[in-house]
Protein backbone atom coordinates (compact mmCIF):
# COMPACT_ATOMS: atom_id res chain seq x y z
CA UNK A 1 0.00 0.00 0.00
CA UNK A 2 1.29 3.43 -0.97
CA UNK A 3 1.84 5.65 2.02
CA UNK A 4 1.30 9.29 1.19
CA UNK A 5 0.92 10.64 4.69
CA UNK A 6 3.12 13.70 4.97
CA UNK A 7 5.32 13.41 8.00
CA UNK A 8 7.34 16.60 7.67
CA UNK A 9 4.58 19.25 7.77
CA UNK A 10 2.61 19.97 10.91
CA UNK A 11 -0.35 17.58 11.28
CA UNK A 12 -3.04 20.24 10.86
CA UNK A 13 -1.73 21.60 7.55
CA UNK A 14 -1.03 18.18 6.04
CA UNK A 15 -4.65 17.31 6.61
CA UNK A 16 -6.04 20.14 4.55
CA UNK A 17 -3.07 20.92 2.29
CA UNK A 18 -3.95 21.25 -1.39
CA UNK A 19 -7.64 21.06 -0.63
CA UNK A 20 -8.77 24.59 -1.49
CA UNK A 21 -9.16 23.95 -5.18
CA UNK A 22 -10.95 20.59 -5.02
CA UNK A 23 -13.29 21.92 -2.33
CA UNK A 24 -14.31 25.02 -4.29
CA UNK A 25 -14.32 23.28 -7.66
CA UNK A 26 -16.42 20.38 -6.38
CA UNK A 27 -19.16 22.79 -5.31
CA UNK A 28 -19.26 24.64 -8.62
CA UNK A 29 -18.69 21.66 -10.91
CA UNK A 30 -21.17 19.27 -9.32
CA UNK A 31 -23.74 22.05 -9.13
CA UNK A 32 -23.58 22.24 -12.91
CA UNK A 33 -23.66 18.46 -13.36
CA UNK A 34 -26.41 17.56 -10.90
CA UNK A 35 -28.33 20.82 -10.71
CA UNK A 36 -28.38 21.81 -14.36
CA UNK A 37 -27.22 19.07 -16.76
CA UNK A 38 -29.13 16.25 -15.07
CA UNK A 39 -32.54 17.99 -14.88
CA UNK A 40 -32.18 19.45 -18.37
CA UNK A 41 -31.23 16.10 -19.92
CA UNK A 42 -34.20 14.50 -18.17
CA UNK A 43 -36.51 17.27 -19.37
CA UNK A 44 -35.38 16.90 -22.97
CA UNK A 45 -35.83 13.11 -22.94
CA UNK A 46 -39.18 13.26 -21.16
CA UNK A 47 -40.55 15.91 -23.52
CA UNK A 48 -39.49 13.78 -26.46
CA UNK A 49 -40.96 10.50 -25.20
CA UNK A 50 -43.95 11.48 -23.06
CA UNK A 51 -44.91 15.01 -23.89
CA UNK A 52 -48.46 14.93 -22.50
CA UNK A 53 -47.68 13.65 -19.00
CA UNK A 54 -44.50 15.76 -18.91
CA UNK A 55 -46.70 18.83 -19.32
CA UNK A 56 -49.05 17.80 -16.51
CA UNK A 57 -51.68 15.63 -18.23
CA UNK A 58 -53.82 18.62 -19.16
CA UNK A 59 -57.38 18.10 -20.40
CA UNK A 60 -58.75 20.33 -23.15
CA UNK A 61 -62.43 20.61 -24.00
CA UNK A 62 -63.68 22.67 -26.95
CA UNK A 63 -60.20 24.13 -27.34
CA UNK A 64 -60.03 25.30 -23.74
CA UNK A 65 -57.95 23.86 -20.91
CA UNK A 66 -60.35 22.61 -18.25
CA UNK A 67 -57.94 20.98 -15.84
CA UNK A 68 -55.29 18.36 -15.23
CA UNK A 69 -56.24 14.72 -15.04
CA UNK A 70 -54.25 14.43 -11.83
CA UNK A 71 -55.41 17.51 -9.96
CA UNK A 72 -58.77 17.59 -8.24
CA UNK A 73 -61.20 20.48 -8.69
CA UNK A 74 -63.63 22.16 -6.35
CA UNK A 75 -67.20 21.06 -7.12
CA UNK A 76 -70.19 22.59 -5.33
CA UNK A 77 -73.07 22.34 -7.80
CA UNK A 78 -75.57 19.51 -7.26
CA UNK A 79 -75.27 18.10 -10.80
CA UNK A 80 -71.59 17.32 -10.22
CA UNK A 81 -70.01 14.72 -7.98
CA UNK A 82 -68.14 16.47 -5.16
CA UNK A 83 -64.54 15.70 -4.25
CA UNK A 84 -63.09 15.33 -0.78
CA UNK A 85 -62.78 18.29 1.61
CA UNK A 86 -59.69 20.37 0.92
CA UNK A 87 -57.70 22.45 3.41
CA UNK A 88 -55.99 24.74 0.92
CA UNK A 89 -56.25 28.49 1.17
CA UNK A 90 -55.33 31.49 -0.96
CA UNK A 91 -55.13 35.25 -0.82
CA UNK A 92 -58.42 37.13 -0.53
CA UNK A 93 -59.11 38.74 -3.93
CA UNK A 94 -60.31 41.91 -2.18
CA UNK A 95 -57.42 42.18 0.25
CA UNK A 96 -54.38 40.24 -0.95
CA UNK A 97 -52.63 40.38 2.40
CA UNK A 98 -55.31 38.19 4.01
CA UNK A 99 -55.62 34.45 3.42
CA UNK A 100 -59.02 32.83 3.08
CA UNK A 101 -60.20 29.24 2.52
CA UNK A 102 -59.79 28.36 -1.14
CA UNK A 103 -60.40 24.64 -1.66
CA UNK A 104 -58.41 22.92 -4.42
CA UNK A 105 -55.96 25.82 -4.84
CA UNK A 106 -53.35 24.06 -7.01
CA UNK A 107 -50.81 26.81 -6.39
CA UNK A 108 -50.61 26.16 -2.63
CA UNK A 109 -51.16 22.51 -1.72
CA UNK A 110 -51.68 21.90 1.98
CA UNK A 111 -53.38 19.67 4.55
CA UNK A 112 -55.16 20.48 7.80
CA UNK A 113 -52.39 18.93 9.90
CA UNK A 114 -54.85 18.52 12.75
CA UNK A 115 -54.13 15.77 15.28
CA UNK A 116 -56.77 13.14 16.02
CA UNK A 117 -57.73 14.80 19.30
CA UNK A 118 -58.12 18.27 17.85
CA UNK A 119 -61.44 19.97 18.68
CA UNK A 120 -61.09 21.93 15.44
CA UNK A 121 -60.93 18.70 13.46
CA UNK A 122 -63.90 17.17 15.26
CA UNK A 123 -66.00 20.31 14.74
CA UNK A 124 -65.06 20.42 11.04
CA UNK A 125 -65.93 16.76 10.55
CA UNK A 126 -69.30 17.16 12.31
CA UNK A 127 -70.17 20.15 10.13
CA UNK A 128 -69.12 18.40 6.90
CA UNK A 129 -71.13 15.31 7.85
CA UNK A 130 -74.22 17.46 8.48
CA UNK A 131 -73.92 19.18 5.08
CA UNK A 132 -73.19 15.91 3.31
CA UNK A 133 -76.32 14.27 4.74
CA UNK A 134 -78.40 17.33 3.88
CA UNK A 135 -77.16 17.55 0.30
CA UNK A 136 -77.63 13.87 -0.38
CA UNK A 137 -80.97 13.43 1.36
CA UNK A 138 -79.67 11.10 4.06
CA UNK A 139 -81.15 10.60 7.53
CA UNK A 140 -79.60 12.89 10.19
CA UNK A 141 -77.93 9.90 11.85
CA UNK A 142 -76.88 8.11 8.67
CA UNK A 143 -73.30 6.84 8.47
CA UNK A 144 -71.11 8.84 6.05
CA UNK A 145 -67.98 7.45 4.36
CA UNK A 146 -64.82 8.68 6.09
CA UNK A 147 -63.28 10.11 2.90
CA UNK A 148 -66.28 12.41 2.41
CA UNK A 149 -65.69 14.29 5.66
CA UNK A 150 -61.91 14.26 6.13
CA UNK A 151 -59.50 16.59 4.34
CA UNK A 152 -57.03 14.95 1.96
CA UNK A 153 -53.26 15.23 2.35
CA UNK A 154 -52.71 17.40 -0.70
CA UNK A 155 -55.95 19.33 -0.74
CA UNK A 156 -56.00 18.32 -4.42
CA UNK A 157 -57.11 14.70 -4.15
CA UNK A 158 -58.69 13.81 -7.52
CA UNK A 159 -60.49 10.73 -6.16
CA UNK A 160 -63.35 9.68 -3.88
CA UNK A 161 -64.26 6.23 -2.61
CA UNK A 162 -66.92 4.11 -4.28
CA UNK A 163 -69.03 4.33 -1.11
CA UNK A 164 -68.92 8.12 -1.34
CA UNK A 165 -69.83 8.12 -5.05
CA UNK A 166 -72.70 5.70 -4.46
CA UNK A 167 -74.29 8.03 -1.90
CA UNK A 168 -74.01 11.01 -4.27
CA UNK A 169 -75.49 9.17 -7.28
CA UNK A 170 -79.16 9.87 -6.44
CA UNK A 171 -78.54 13.61 -6.02
CA UNK A 172 -76.60 13.91 -9.26
CA UNK A 173 -79.16 11.86 -11.20
CA UNK A 174 -82.02 13.99 -9.86
CA UNK A 175 -80.22 17.27 -10.61
CA UNK A 176 -79.55 16.17 -14.17
CA UNK A 177 -82.81 14.40 -14.82
CA UNK A 178 -80.87 11.30 -15.75
CA UNK A 179 -81.81 7.74 -14.78
CA UNK A 180 -79.91 6.59 -11.69
CA UNK A 181 -78.60 3.46 -13.41
CA UNK A 182 -77.04 5.55 -16.14
CA UNK A 183 -75.18 7.70 -13.59
CA UNK A 184 -74.18 4.58 -11.65
CA UNK A 185 -72.84 3.04 -14.85
CA UNK A 186 -70.73 6.15 -15.49
CA UNK A 187 -69.40 5.94 -11.92
CA UNK A 188 -68.33 2.36 -12.58
CA UNK A 189 -66.69 3.35 -15.85
CA UNK A 190 -64.67 6.09 -14.12
CA UNK A 191 -63.55 3.89 -11.25
CA UNK A 192 -59.94 2.73 -11.34
CA UNK A 193 -59.33 -0.64 -9.77
CA UNK A 194 -56.19 -1.45 -7.80
CA UNK A 195 -53.15 -1.01 -10.03
CA UNK A 196 -52.09 -4.42 -11.42
CA UNK A 197 -54.93 -5.77 -9.26
CA UNK A 198 -52.82 -5.26 -6.15
CA UNK A 199 -51.64 -1.74 -5.41
CA UNK A 200 -53.61 1.09 -3.84
CA UNK A 201 -57.37 1.40 -3.39
CA UNK A 202 -60.25 1.36 -5.91
CA UNK A 203 -61.01 5.02 -6.57
CA UNK A 204 -63.58 7.07 -8.46
CA UNK A 205 -62.03 9.83 -10.55
CA UNK A 206 -64.22 12.87 -9.87
CA UNK A 207 -63.15 15.21 -12.68
CA UNK A 208 -63.30 12.54 -15.39
CA UNK A 209 -66.65 11.34 -14.06
CA UNK A 210 -68.07 14.87 -14.17
CA UNK A 211 -66.69 15.40 -17.67
CA UNK A 212 -68.34 12.14 -18.74
CA UNK A 213 -71.64 13.29 -17.21
CA UNK A 214 -71.47 16.57 -19.15
CA UNK A 215 -70.71 14.65 -22.33
CA UNK A 216 -73.61 12.26 -21.71
CA UNK A 217 -76.02 15.15 -21.35
CA UNK A 218 -74.63 16.82 -24.46
CA UNK A 219 -74.93 13.55 -26.41
CA UNK A 220 -78.48 12.72 -25.33
CA UNK A 221 -80.57 14.94 -27.68
CA UNK A 222 -78.62 13.56 -30.62
CA UNK A 223 -79.19 9.98 -29.47
CA UNK A 224 -82.95 10.34 -29.05
Amino acid at each position, binding site marked *: MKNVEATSAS*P*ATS*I*ISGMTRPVLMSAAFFMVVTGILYPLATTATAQLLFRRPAQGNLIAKDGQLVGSRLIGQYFTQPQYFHGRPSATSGPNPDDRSRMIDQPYNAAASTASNQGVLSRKLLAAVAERARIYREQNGLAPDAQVPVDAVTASASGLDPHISRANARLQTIRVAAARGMPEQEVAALVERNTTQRQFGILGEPAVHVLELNLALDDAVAARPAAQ
Partner: protein
Amino acid sequence: MSPQNLCRIYMGNTLWDGEFTGFRWILRRGHRAVPFGNGTDPQTIRGASMWDLLYIMLTVAFFALATGLILGLDRL
Protein backbone atom coordinates in the same frame (compact mmCIF):
# COMPACT_ATOMS: atom_id res chain seq x y z
CA MET B 1 -37.68 21.51 31.56
CA SER B 2 -39.59 23.35 34.23
CA PRO B 3 -43.15 22.36 35.13
CA GLN B 4 -44.38 25.85 34.22
CA ASN B 5 -43.23 25.51 30.65
CA LEU B 6 -44.66 22.09 30.12
CA CYS B 7 -47.83 23.56 31.49
CA ARG B 8 -47.60 26.40 29.02
CA ILE B 9 -47.21 24.10 26.05
CA TYR B 10 -49.98 21.87 27.32
CA MET B 11 -52.44 24.59 28.18
CA GLY B 12 -51.51 26.98 25.41
CA ASN B 13 -51.23 30.00 27.66
CA THR B 14 -48.23 31.89 28.84
CA LEU B 15 -47.72 31.16 32.49
CA TRP B 16 -44.11 32.09 32.05
CA ASP B 17 -43.43 35.42 30.44
CA GLY B 18 -39.66 35.48 30.47
CA GLU B 19 -37.64 35.89 27.33
CA PHE B 20 -35.30 33.26 26.02
CA THR B 21 -32.58 35.76 26.65
CA GLY B 22 -29.59 33.83 25.33
CA PHE B 23 -30.80 33.77 21.76
CA ARG B 24 -31.95 37.40 21.83
CA TRP B 25 -28.61 38.36 23.34
CA ILE B 26 -26.72 36.75 20.49
CA LEU B 27 -28.89 38.48 17.91
CA ARG B 28 -28.46 41.85 19.62
CA ARG B 29 -24.70 41.47 19.93
CA GLY B 30 -24.39 40.19 16.39
CA HIS B 31 -26.35 43.19 15.30
CA ARG B 32 -24.20 45.68 17.21
CA ALA B 33 -21.01 44.10 15.96
CA VAL B 34 -21.92 45.03 12.40
CA PRO B 35 -21.05 48.64 11.56
CA PHE B 36 -23.68 49.22 8.89
CA GLY B 37 -27.42 49.22 9.01
CA ASN B 38 -29.68 49.25 11.97
CA GLY B 39 -32.74 47.65 10.38
CA THR B 40 -33.44 44.05 11.20
CA ASP B 41 -35.93 43.76 8.36
CA PRO B 42 -34.40 41.24 5.95
CA GLN B 43 -36.30 42.78 3.05
CA THR B 44 -34.21 45.97 3.21
CA ILE B 45 -30.66 45.84 1.87
CA ARG B 46 -29.16 47.07 5.14
CA GLY B 47 -31.19 44.71 7.27
CA ALA B 48 -30.50 41.82 4.94
CA SER B 49 -26.73 42.27 4.97
CA MET B 50 -26.70 42.19 8.77
CA TRP B 51 -28.66 38.95 8.87
CA ASP B 52 -26.67 37.46 6.02
CA LEU B 53 -23.43 38.16 7.85
CA LEU B 54 -24.86 36.55 10.96
CA TYR B 55 -25.87 33.35 9.20
CA ILE B 56 -22.66 33.12 7.19
CA MET B 57 -20.71 33.54 10.41
CA LEU B 58 -22.83 30.86 12.03
CA THR B 59 -22.17 28.46 9.14
CA VAL B 60 -18.44 29.15 9.18
CA ALA B 61 -18.35 28.74 12.96
CA PHE B 62 -20.08 25.37 12.74
CA PHE B 63 -17.78 23.98 10.09
CA ALA B 64 -14.73 25.35 11.94
CA LEU B 65 -15.95 23.50 15.03
CA ALA B 66 -16.39 20.29 13.05
CA THR B 67 -12.91 20.68 11.56
CA GLY B 68 -11.67 21.15 15.09
CA LEU B 69 -13.34 17.87 15.96
CA ILE B 70 -11.41 16.09 13.22
CA LEU B 71 -8.11 17.58 14.35
CA GLY B 72 -8.77 17.05 18.04
CA LEU B 73 -10.38 13.61 18.13
CA ASP B 74 -7.19 11.68 18.81
CA ARG B 75 -6.53 13.83 21.86
CA LEU B 76 -9.81 12.65 23.33
